[in-house]
């Protein structure tokens, strides 16, 4: 997740102080992982240097929290470019799960056990997410759905790999 782009996106709505920006970010995107103030000010300082934000006002009293930041035209273009550029799909085939299945086969261990144990661990997290969805607001639901679909994709891939264990074992040997 690009914190810089997300902060820029929040500033597109209205100019904000660093503190407001952190609060808006945490509320919308950072429930599990709120930003540290240091991250906010370091990111704003970088955005400022790159001309993507500007200080639109400084209130009396000084200190970084008194500055109000506004997005620049270059910042708006940057956000638009970020939003219209797809994220690189993550490669799954070389991940830890694949390595575990292959290593289990290579060492003569039960690869089904790798799958069953992984399924149990995935399902434990999926249950927590499903519970959180049931009590959460729409934002919570959307975030949980995304995590659920990814976990499910991992499991589907593992199930398929396990169904192909015989073929895989031949190739490995």
């Amino acid at each position, binding site marked *: 997740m690009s914190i810089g782009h997300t902060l820029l996106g929040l500033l597109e709505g209205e100019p904000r102080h660093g503190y407001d920006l952190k609060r808006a970010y945490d509320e919308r995107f950072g429930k599990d992982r709120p930003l540290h103030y240091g991250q906010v000010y370091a990111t704003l300082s970088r955005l400022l240097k790159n001309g993507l934000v500007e200080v639109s006002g400084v209130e009396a009293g000084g200190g970084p929290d008194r500055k109000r930041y506004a997005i620049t035209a270059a910042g708006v273009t940057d956000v638009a470019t970020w939003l219209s550029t797809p994220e690189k799909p993550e490669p799954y085939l070389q991940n830890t799960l694949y390595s575990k299945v292959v290593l289990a086969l290579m060492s003569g261990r039960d690869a089904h056990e790798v799958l*069953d144990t992984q399924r149990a661990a995935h399902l434990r997290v999926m249950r927590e997410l499903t519970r959180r969805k049931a009590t959460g607001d729409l934002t919570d639901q959307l975030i949980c759905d995304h995590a659920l679909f990814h976990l499910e994709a991992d499991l589907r891939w593992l199930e398929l790999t396990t169904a192909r264990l015989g073929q895989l074992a031949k190739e490995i040997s």
Partner: protein
Amino acid sequence: MTSDAVGQPLLAGINLRKSFGPTPALDGAGLHVRAGEVVAVMGPSGSGKSTLLHCLAGILKPDSGRVLYQGSDLTELSDGQRSELRRTEFGFVFQFGQLVPELTCLENVALPLRLGGVRRREAERRATEWLDRLEVTGVAGKRPGETSGGQGQRVAVARALVTGPKVVFADEPTGALDSLNGERVMDLLVSSAKQTNAAIVLVTHEARVAAYSDREVVVRDGKSREVELAR
């Protein structure tokens, strides 16, 4: 979904074996479920999941092994006794084709009550309540063929729960639905069952559906396995 189920199993299949001709479908599988608990049965196609469910529900008689329901062995009951048990104590939700096409949705939901001798007016009053709980009051007068897949499946859930079953058997209940409708059906099925402290045996190959369960049992080659992770 957090189970407050404690104590003895309500239903338990022990060391079940079942073959169809020379083909073994169950080879020592077992499963138990407590009141108010949701247990997912997972595994690849042809692994024996549905056969296990059918044995637990008394639809099939295993070649060997025991199915204990509230202490009595289903395998020792007559066909008639098992039918009676299924009608009064169990509810069923399948993937397809469970509603009677000639009856309206209201009549479909009232049907298990009518078969149990409940008078028409009372059966339809209770059926209406359940259609309401499942948020499909609007289809009461329609035939199943005139409803959407999601509506039809909610009607099926209402019909499974209308008799107040102790155990609900659900075999791929969302298999024919899109994600959003499937999720709604699972939300309603599980929350309704929890309210009445009914157990659910949920056969599914979908992890997102299994995530509604309290624990999962995996069936592979007719054998069952439950993984216990360290906390």
